[in-house]
């Protein structure tokens, strides 16, 4: 089911259990830096669970068990020697609800580069913060109030702050779990524009319940149902002419 390209991150035969319940059943997918991939499917289909296997977020859930091969640039991310903190810097994540630290806007973005030692001095750190905020499309709105609390920003600005925070540590992959579900249409459009700008620099994987959003922002779409990957292909094909009946029923609003 894979489309050949330079795979940044590759998942092969992934199974996930929560206790006795199998949440993901033998899913294989590859992601490259040259495109955005959408994961779609009804609630409980396993798309978020699958997304979270890509930077080992499921490690924090004691009952979760992950099987299969997930490699980042050919390196097994579940290998015992893999540094999980380092991994999550390389594979950043943006969540459904913006979750800025209760610190200043500057500190929210500076925190990651500082703990990962990416900046040699204060000037460099300032440069990283500015560059990240610019890439996240937030700089012009916050440059005069970098010392204000991140939590004082609007929801859309907070989400872009979280994206700035994720890209400040120079990741290779960005995972987004319904990044716009709590945002108004304008803020959503800004995030979508941002995803478009970031494409090519990072491999981006986005989970979304918004079909139109998946159609707009991604070049590849994967449809999940009951823990299995039903269909994967070019977004334009999936939304105009899906091969599988279940994909069609879901995207046209006939599911269930």
């Amino acid at each position, binding site marked *: 089911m894979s489309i050949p390209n330079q795979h940044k991150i590759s998942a092969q035969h992934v199974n996930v259990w929560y206790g006795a319940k199998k949440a993901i059943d033998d899913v294989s997918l590859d992601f490259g830096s040259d495109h955005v991939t959408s994961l779609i499917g009804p609630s409980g289909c396993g798309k978020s669970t699958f997304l979270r296997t890509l930077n080992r977020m499921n490690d924090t859930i004691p009952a979760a068990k992950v099987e299969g091969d997930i490699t980042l640039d050919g390196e097994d991310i579940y290998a015992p020697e893999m540094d999980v903190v380092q991994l999550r810097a390389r594979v950043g994540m943006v969540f459904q609800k913006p979750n800025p630290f209760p610190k200043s806007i500057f500190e929210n973005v500076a925190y990651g580069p500082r703990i990962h030692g990416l900046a040699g001095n204060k000037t460099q750190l300032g440069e990283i913060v500015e560059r990240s905020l610019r890439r996240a499309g937030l700089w012009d709105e916050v440059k005069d109030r970098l010392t204000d609390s991140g939590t004082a920003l609007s929801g859309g600005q907070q989400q872009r702050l979280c994206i700035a925070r994720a890209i400040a540590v120079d990741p290779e992959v960005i995972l987004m779990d319904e990044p716009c579900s709590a945002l108004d249409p304008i803020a959503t459009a800004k995030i979508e524009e941002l995803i478009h700008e970031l494409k090519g620099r990072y491999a981006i994987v986005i989970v979304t319940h918004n*079909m139109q959003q998946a*159609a707009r922002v991604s070049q590849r779409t994967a449809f999940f149902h009951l823990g299995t990957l039903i269909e994967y292909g070019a977004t334009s094909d999936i*939304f*105009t*002419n899906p091969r599988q009946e279940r994909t*069609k029923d879901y*995207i*046209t*609003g*006939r599911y269930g």
Partner: protein
Amino acid sequence: MNDHTVKAFDADIGQLRGLIAQMGGMAEHAIAGAMEALRRHDLEGAQLIIAGDKKLDALELEVEQLAVRIIALRAPLADDLREVVAALKIAGVIERIGDYAKNIAKRVPSIDSHGEIEPLSVLPAMSALAVRMVHDALDAFAARDADAAVEVCQRDREVDDFYNSLFRVLVTHMMENPRTIGQVTQLLFIAKNLERVGDHATNIAEMIYYAATGTHMVERDRGTLLSLTE
């Protein structure tokens, strides 16, 4: 085909299909009616066909508004999207077929030679073929039947052949009876209109095929022979 979770969506699609069916029926009747008026030299009947074309134009506008509303409010995808787009385009084509009916009706007053022009007797047969194609194309739309759409396309050859042979007959007739040139030229235009109706039915069938399958009909399904009319 399962129903949509949002029932109003099914109602919208149903309404769109109903409008297309209604337009198709009107266009068929308009062509048949214009031909009947021609055959009987019925000026009043021709006038009715000309006036009736306005209804077809109004229905096309209605389809357009409904399709735009569905796209805006329902954001259709996959087969729904293809169907809405197809309906929008089909409505435009049916409106054109109506224009041909009107054009034929407008020529009725200038052809008054009952029994004098022999080829006049074969035009209704050609018309019946073309109208049948329109009718069957719209049945294929109602049934989302790609095979039936292919079958309609293949029949366009018959209409084209009819036109080509009629063209020769009419030219011969004009050479032999120069004083009928004015009227026979009108008949030639009518034959050409009917040939175009067949082409439009083919277009409709191609759109139905795309709506039903998501792929475009390949050349070999349509029949490949080039004829004089292309």
